[in-house]
């Protein structure tokens, strides 16, 4: 390593949680964070930063974190349904271009909130439209001719190739949007649409196929120009959470074995929260991640740099207390 490249920090090995907090006193941490999220609620949703415009991703996570609040639930459901695009998807903020990767999160939040309302039928049209959008939005590699060739060479199985979700329409599939879309189709229960099982299976296969050689997931490919890529903590956790119903898969087991070596492991509130949720979703111990997380709470009750991270942190602590909103039943 060049001698001049000296200005380096501790890297992924964080030492933020100097003194181990007492997990029995986790409730005040949770309440303070919840209060912070509650105070930041505005016009039916949440922004990344309190002063900004409401956006789908923080709205989805904050709403799921505060799903027990009936008044808030109704407002968020209205916000999501009202701002659903004509094609059934959602844009990162209302009016900001075509439907994009946030559609998976919007649907996930909508389904969870409707279940809390015990009114899954109330906005069935919106949900059905969103599911249909997700089915259509998957990455497609092959044109009609290529599919014919695949079918000739391999039969029907040749068309069962892995398909995940892109960030933007017409692009390639990536771990995070695929994880979000899978969660939306699996939680709180499997989506009721013909072919749903096949869609989910092919997306699961995309994740399983693209696991890193070391264990875990990078953000998309595991391989680039013949070099194996290292796993990232956040995308590894996201993939694991989405694959809870594939717990015996080699890629899943391998990921847990290698979790502490993923880049960014417990190196931030986001990483600690996602990792804790992943561990708890499989019934594994998350004490280290939870300790790391609660030590990072800011004085105002928030976590990390934005509301999405605060909401994720709440979800992680709720999961630690036995109420995991992202558990696939």
């Amino acid at each position, binding site marked *: *390593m060049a001698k*001049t*490249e*000296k*200005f*380096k920090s*501790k*890297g*992924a090995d*964080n030492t933020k949680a100097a003194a181990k907090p007492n997990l029995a006193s986790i409730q005040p941490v949770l309440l303070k964070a919840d209060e912070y999220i509650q105070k930041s609620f505005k016009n039916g949703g949440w922004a*990344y930063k309190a002063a*900004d*415009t409401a956006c789908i*991703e923080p709205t989805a996570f904050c709403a799921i974190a505060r799903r027990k609040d009936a008044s808030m639930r109704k407002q968020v459901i209205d916000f999501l349904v009202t701002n659903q695009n004509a094609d059934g998807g959602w844009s*990162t903020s209302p009016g900001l*271009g075509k439907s994009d*990767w946030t559609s998976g999160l919007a649907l996930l939040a909508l389904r969870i909130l409707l279940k809390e309302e015990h009114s899954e039928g109330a906005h069935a049209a919106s949900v059905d439209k969103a599911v249909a959008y997700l089915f259509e939005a998957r990455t497609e*590699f092959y*044109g009609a001719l*290529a599919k014919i*060739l*695949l079918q000739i*060479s391999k039969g029907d*199985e040749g*068309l*069962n*190739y892995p398909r995940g979700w*892109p*960030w*933007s329409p017409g*692009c*390639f599939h*990536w771990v*995070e949007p695929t994880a979000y879309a899978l969660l939306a189709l699996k939680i709180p229960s499997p989506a009721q649409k013909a072919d749903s099982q096949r869609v989910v*299976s092919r997306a*699961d*296969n995309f994740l*399983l*196929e693209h696991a890193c050689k070391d264990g875990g997931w990078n*953000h*998309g*490919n595991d391989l*680039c*120009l*013949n*070099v*194996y890529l*290292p796993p990232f*903590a*956040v995308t590894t956790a996201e993939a694991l959470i989405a694959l809870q119903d594939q717990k*015996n*898969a*080699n890629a899943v087991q391998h990921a847990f074995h290698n979790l502490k070596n993923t*880049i960014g492991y417990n*190196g*931030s*509130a*986001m990483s600690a929260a996602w990792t804790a949720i992943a561990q708890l979703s499989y019934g594994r111990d998350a004490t280290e991640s939870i300790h790391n997380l609660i030590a990072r709470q800011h004085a105002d009750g928030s976590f*990390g740099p934005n509301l*999405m991270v605060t909401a994720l942190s709440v979800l992680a602590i709720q999961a630690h207390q036995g109420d995991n909103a992202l558990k696939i039943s």
Partner: protein
Amino acid sequence: MDHKEKRCPKTGRIIARASETSGDRNCNSPADAPRSPGIARRTFIAGSVATVATFSMTGCGGKTLTGKPLPKPTAEQAARKRKTPSSVALVPCASYEDDPMPELKKYAKELKLPDLTGKTVLLKPNMVEFHPGSPVTTNPHALKAAFDLADYLGAKDIIIGEGPGHMRDTEFLLEATGLGAMVKKLGARFVDLNLDDLEALELKDGFSGLKQFFLPRTLMNADVVVSVPKMKTHHWVGMTASMKNFFGAVPGRKYGWPKNLLHMRGIPQCILDLQDLIKPRFALVDGVVAMEGDGPINGTAKEMGFYVIGDDLAAVDATCARTMGFDPYELDYIKIAGEVVGNVNADAITVLGLDIERVKQKFERPVTFKNKKLMEQSANQAS
């Protein structure tokens, strides 16, 4: 068959055997679904229409790095090009511990960098991803140099803004790269450009075919934007410096991590469109320790010992290319930038400071230079 892992001697990364890249992997559990179809998927895609379409462009004006036609700029696009000769300075800085400010101030005057009195300035470093011990990101001392320079030029407010392209965990990246500590030390404000409020910008007469770009409001509201990149090779476009740096200004909350739409629309094309939309005022390139080989992530350190500054980013990048042993005309986006952004021709660029002939080194080129088939896979792997 030898099943030993082969590692790159420089990076230590495991290199896949050829048989492993054909598309099929081991199925070790009944839970793992059957793998690829009869034709290896990646191989099949390499020859598909989709790949060609990704690189197809209007017009015909020469060959690209991929061997495919380059766009021929329209008269309107060409009219945007800088009309006067350019100057670029290679400012000596043997190590990050050295103070470059006396030299930077001297060359700032000679280059006639703009007076920033009363202006809000956004400095845009590279914080794309973190690999321990690897020169992937702008060094914190380089960021400080840019900050001090902006301050010297009279800036009223200096914001640090970046939208990391590969890892969205900005809190981790700021800590791990040391950039967060430097931002704090400077008393500056950091804005995550990935999550900022967005402005919709109409793109007229662009190269990418996109009609609209969503860009961060903080970036677009700044009076002056300064590029503070790391000088690196790049396996898709040859090298990355001040112009390619603005991929990190494109918000992940709309375009993702990575910003795959930009790859699909053509990296050179999007680089040029972003130049036109953002109009950065000048650049300070971190070439103290650069990256060679499989950049921009998996390459290795190359000590060069200088910063590169200038107010014509095409000229800055062309000069960087020359110090790296490239002919800038073999790099697509730089070649076209020479027609629509600024000067690339050495005759139109005065290089101040260090003698380019004495400091230039032959960088190890990305493998895509030697293997065009790998380059054609770029839109598919998109990493």
